[in-house]
């Protein structure tokens, strides 16, 4: 049973665009200081859900309360207490970074001394010192993304919506941002977080809702999702020769192999299988026949990505909705 006074309570919320159902009767609760992940393939309904919860779009049916306020009738009160980092870029093109932060604080009616203090703190914390006076129009996508995040922390809020906030960021900046979010969650902030990067969801989220074709197909902790849907193991191996298309083709056609991918960059092959004990000899057998050498091989733990793919694949087109408020 979740808390009695959730930050977000969504009941049977739907959104239609003409004949297309973008979001179909989704339901969930989110508690204070919780990071709630919203995962799904492209076009699953993640951004539409965020747009409804941030009052930008009117739901077609269903109801929701955000911070105790009704989504349909108290939009202004909701918007006073939330922050949103959009998936798309957003910036004031005529300003530099520091002025942009200052004017954003101004429109939120933050007093000038407080704005100055917060801007200094955010610029230092998010590593924006070197481009603080750069015009926003000249920023790289990663710098612009950091500006978008910093901007939302200029004003006070209880709930932050993050719509794929780390797209285009290098791993160091990405980790800086995620750690920053974690700090703020410890201070009481609640986060609604969509991402395609499943390691991020695993790192940050307390619970994850998986959405597909507009419907929530499961809600659980990352650990439980992995346990429940990640029964398959992953066998990872490398070839001395780098890659072999013939070997990949042979393994892909094997009955024991659920999925085979080669990671770009490292050249590591990752085989998802329920029977690693039969796949490993098969890899060696094919390799010997093709004259390629396996330089390393090991069985790895199930990742959230494995669980996510299994879950979405299992429920593709089935419209299965499991317990919307599963803990």
């Amino acid at each position, binding site marked *: 049973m979740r808390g009695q006074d959730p930050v977000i309570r969504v009941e049977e919320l739907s959104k239609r665009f003409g004949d297309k159902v973008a979001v179909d009767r989704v339901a969930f609760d989110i508690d204070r200081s919780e990071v709630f992940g919203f995962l799904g393939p492209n076009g699953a309904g993640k951004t539409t859900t965020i*747009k409804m919860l*941030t*009052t*930008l*779009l009117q739901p077609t049916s269903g109801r929701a309360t955000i911070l105790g306020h009704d989504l349909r009738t108290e939009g*202004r009160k909701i*918007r*006073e207490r*939330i922050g*949103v980092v*959009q998936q*798309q*870029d*957003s*910036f*004031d*093109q*005529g*300003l530099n970074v520091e*002025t*942009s932060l200052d*004017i954003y604080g*101004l*429109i*939120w*009616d933050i007093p000038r001394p407080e704005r100055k203090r917060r801007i200094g703190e955010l610029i230092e914390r998010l590593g924006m010192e070197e481009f603080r006076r750069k015009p926003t129009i000249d920023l790289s996508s990663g710098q612009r993304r950091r500006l978008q995040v910093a901007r939302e922390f200029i004003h006070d809020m209880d709930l932050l919506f993050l719509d794929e906030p780390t797209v285009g960021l290098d791993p160091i900046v990405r980790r800086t941002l995620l750690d920053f979010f974690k700090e703020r969650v410890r201070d009481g902030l609640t986060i609604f977080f969509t991402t395609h990067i499943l390691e991020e969801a695993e790192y940050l989220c307390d619970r994850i809702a998986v959405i597909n074709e507009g419907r929530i197909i499961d809600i659980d902790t990352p650990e439980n999702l992995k346990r429940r849907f990640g029964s398959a193991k992953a066998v990872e191996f490398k070839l001395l020769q780098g890659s072999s298309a013939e070997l990949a083709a042979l393994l892909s056609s094997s009955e024991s192999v659920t999925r085979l991918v080669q990671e770009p960059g490292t050249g590591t092959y990752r085989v998802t299988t329920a029977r690693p004990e039969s796949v490993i000899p098969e890899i060696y057998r094919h390799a010997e026949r093709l004259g390629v050498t396996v330089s390393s091989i090991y069985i790895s733990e199930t990742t959230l990505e494995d669980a996510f793919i299994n879950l979405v694949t299992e429920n593709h087109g089935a419209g299965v909705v499991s317990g919307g408020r599963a803990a």
Partner: protein
Amino acid sequence: MNIYLRLVYRNLRANLDRASLFFELIFPLFFIFVQGFGLNGIVPPFDIGNGKFVSYSLFLAAGAVTLTVINGGTNAGTQLWFDRKNGMFEQILMGPFTRAQYILSIIFATLIIGVAGSLLVFVFAFPVVGASFAFSLEGVLLIAAALFFGTVFFGAFAITLSVALKSSETFQVVSTFAFFIFLFTSSVFFPASSAPSAIQAASLANPLTYTTDIFRAGLFSAATPTTSLELGVLAVEAAAMFVIAVLAFRRIRV
């Protein structure tokens, strides 16, 4: 600070294209100093109403001041375009503001640009043209009303265009063409009564005609009984255009 002041300040700081503004001011001055002086020698002074005779250069200077009203209006559309293109439109609407506050803040920013631009052109141009004025309260009120309603009309018109058109390039082309039509079917360059009948008919629907006529009436103390009627028509046109802009604005898909 008041919510409108905050948003207007933000619009002026974030979305003003200084290069465009410069040319928007140069454009009317060019008409005043080149066309005005050029034609002054061959066009005799004429009656603009209430028995007031003015030279062509003065007539045109007053018209060119109201030209900045159109330029200010274009700026309203540009502000909205910048915000939509740069993702700030949605970002602001997800903040503690309403759509009405946002659109009004654009109109207010446009008013500031339009009125400030008109004053600047006035200050630069009229001493050179050689005019001297004794302003009456009625004259000042007419000038203020002309600039206010004119800017609201053209600001709302530009907002409607920027909502209706799919790209900023199309907006630029269509707005330039539309404003060209407004300009040459108005009384900015010549009295509407001296134009061919088709242009005269078009000028009767053209808010720039009324903006310019009312401005001149206030400036040269040349108000006639028809000036009140013109003011009424301009106010109705501005209000109607504003309502159309609000309706169009509400239809923007996010």
